């Protein structure tokens, strides 16, 4: 992980520098608006001092400050022996010199975050809802993800970034408010009122843009980190499924955390403001479903190489998320077995599901897997276009073969249809004539013929699914 750590160090410096520059420029402009003669430099100096103060605060006690903001309380070994043990295990697996302090947040929705200026002063906070809902393996996955953030020095970067971001937002906000409610700008005889108006306009635009700019910069770095921490978690635990199923459970209940500061959101394992915050561009986390898919696609391996392969397969691109040097240093790493706790029960459930799915296939039912783990079975002759998952409420379209390209020829039945695969497992879809067609996991041919209307249907592989498709 050398590259990741080095690039984090570089980015931390860049971010501190850029945010400092934004603060100074903002200070200068606000000063200039307040007093056109001498205000600019004074404003800049005040901003610079403020930036230094923030930096010191962030480095000295950033973790603690954030924990206060999140209403977390420290725990000892007796309070939650399993959590304590799991954190110690992951500290050992990652080779961290010191075990992070553990905090618990009283909160129903399951989530977790790590913070702190250095790996030695790192803290890990989990919600009580997380402890209640996760199995040992899942908890291990989550803690390994957080320890990954600590190990890759993400926590330092995040802590500094969060503190700076918050302060820029506050200053801009104060300035914009003062324009409405303040005493108004002083008129100066010596300075051209037109120039003054121009300065004011620029300052207003800057005050609007600065928080957005800082936020964008920070988001761009923050999503890559989530992938890296997932890869670290898989490697530390040697068991990607633990984190995958934990993410699934967290995503199911998470998007309703009360009292979460907007600036704190990127710290959590799954964005606690999900749903409130629209748009992939501004999102601090990659889509959880995609992270789960990548972890589940790590067939047979838990090393960097395996994560990278899965990452490229799921995202459909050639870009890698892990540095070349790390990748070349080692090969695939084998996965361990699940912890036996509840093992037999889970196995039984899996087997029952398998048999159930098999019967469904025989009865020409169409299987629609939901990201939350529920498998819906729908009769193929049901005339509806979307189905809601009974557990999590996600909407799924009825899988159908469609005419390639020209959608206009919907009325007249086209000769050739096309269906895009969405998963590597069993799949079923509806042909244009209404007949259900099953695809096995081993089906690799480019086309299949419908039993009802004998039309040829082109089967598009998963690799051709555009990035960002559900």
């Amino acid at each position, binding site marked *: 992980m050398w590259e990741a750590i080095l690039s984090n160090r570089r980015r931390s410096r860049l971010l501190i520098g850029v945010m400092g520059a934004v603060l100074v420029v903002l200070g200068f402009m606000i000063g200039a608006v307040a007093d056109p003669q001498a205000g600019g430099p004074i404003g800049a100096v005040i901003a610079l001092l403020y930036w230094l103060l923030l930096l010191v605060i962030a480095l000295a006690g950033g973790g603690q400050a954030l924990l206060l903001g999140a209403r977390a309380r420290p725990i000892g070994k007796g309070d939650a*022996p*399993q959590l304590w*043990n*799991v954190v*110690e*295990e*992951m500290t*050992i*697996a*990652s*080779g961290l010199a010191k075990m992070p302090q553990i905090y618990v947040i009283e909160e129903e929705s399951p989530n977790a975050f790590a913070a702190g200026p250095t790996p030695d002063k790192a803290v890990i906070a989990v919600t009580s809802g997380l402890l209640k809902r996760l199995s*040992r393996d899942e908890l291990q996955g989550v803690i390994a993800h957080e320890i990954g953030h600590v190990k890759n020095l993400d926590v330092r970067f995040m802590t500094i970034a969060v503190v700076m971001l918050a302060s820029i937002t506050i200053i801009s906000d104060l300035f914009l408010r003062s324009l409405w409610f303040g005493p108004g700008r002083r008129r100066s005889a010596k300075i051209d009122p037109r120039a003054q108006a121009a300065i004011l306009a620029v300052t207003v635009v800057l005050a609007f843009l600065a928080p957005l700019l800082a936020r964008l910069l920070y988001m761009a770095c923050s999503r890559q980190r989530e992938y890296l921490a997932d890869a670290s978690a898989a490697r*530390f635990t*040697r068991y990607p499924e633990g984190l995958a199923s934990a993410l699934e459970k967290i995503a199911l209940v998470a998007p309703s955390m009360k009292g979460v500061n907007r600036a704190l959101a990127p710290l959590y394992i799954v964005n606690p403001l999900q749903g409130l915050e629209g748009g992939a561009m501004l999102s601090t986390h990659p889509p959880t479903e995609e992270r789960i898919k990548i972890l589940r696609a790590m067939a047979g391996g838990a090393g960097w190489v395996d994560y990278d392969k899965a990452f490229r397969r799921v995202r459909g691109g050639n870009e890698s998320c892990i540095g070349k040097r790390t990748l070349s*240093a*080692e090969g695939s790493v084998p996965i*361990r*077995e699940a*912890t*036996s*706790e509840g*093992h*037999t029960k889970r196995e039984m459930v899996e087997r029952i599901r398998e048999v159930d799915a098999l019967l469904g296939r025989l009865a020409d039912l169409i299987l629609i897997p939901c990201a939350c783990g529920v498998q819906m079975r729908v009769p193929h002759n049901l005339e509806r276009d979307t189905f809601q998952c009974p557990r999590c409420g996600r909407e799924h379209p009825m899988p159908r073969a469609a005419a390639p390209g020209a959608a206009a020829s919907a009325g007249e039945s086209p000769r050739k249809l096309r269906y895009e695969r969405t998963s590597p497992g069993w799949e079923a879809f509806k042909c244009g004539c209404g007949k259900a067609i099953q695809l096995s996991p081993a089906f690799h041919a480019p086309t299949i013929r419908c039993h009802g209307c004998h039309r040829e249907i082109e089967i598009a592989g998963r690799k051709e699914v555009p990035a960002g498709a559900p």
Partner: protein
Amino acid sequence: MLAVLILLGLLGAVALWLVGLYNSLVRLRNQVKNAWAQIDVQLKRRHDLIPNLVETVKGYAGHEKTTLERVVQARGAAVNAHGVGAQAKAEGELSAALGRLMVVVEQYPDLKANQNFLALQEELTSTENRIGFSRQHYNDSVMTYNTRTQSFPANVVAGMFTFNPEEFFELKDEAAREAPKVAF
């Protein structure tokens, strides 16, 4: 004069580079040593846990004498083992003996409901995990160190200052490898 200065400069640069290389090898070797110390700590933790566990189980399943004795014996052998290879073997046998004990425990519902035993069980699970993870980390560190000392140009420095390759900590016995899978 200039040529001498350039030569001196070059020599200085090479010396600095060698020092850097040497230091990085020392750092890696220390990492391996630390990782080994961590395994040792965790193995001791398990040794300390076992008398308590045996006492608790005895209270409910006293007539499972052979299984209990085997655990005690394996613990004694593991405590006295020296060297990476011997210790790995003894610890593997201890893991296997503990696994068998846990299978026996399955037949005593009263024992399984005992609070003290449940707490011990969590500790034992965690200790097994810690041993596994510290072994994993040790082997990762050994791999990094060995690769580094064997590849050019570090191998020249490693040869000069006798940086010997380190031994991996492997569980040789297949039975020992299987043991942690047993249901607790």
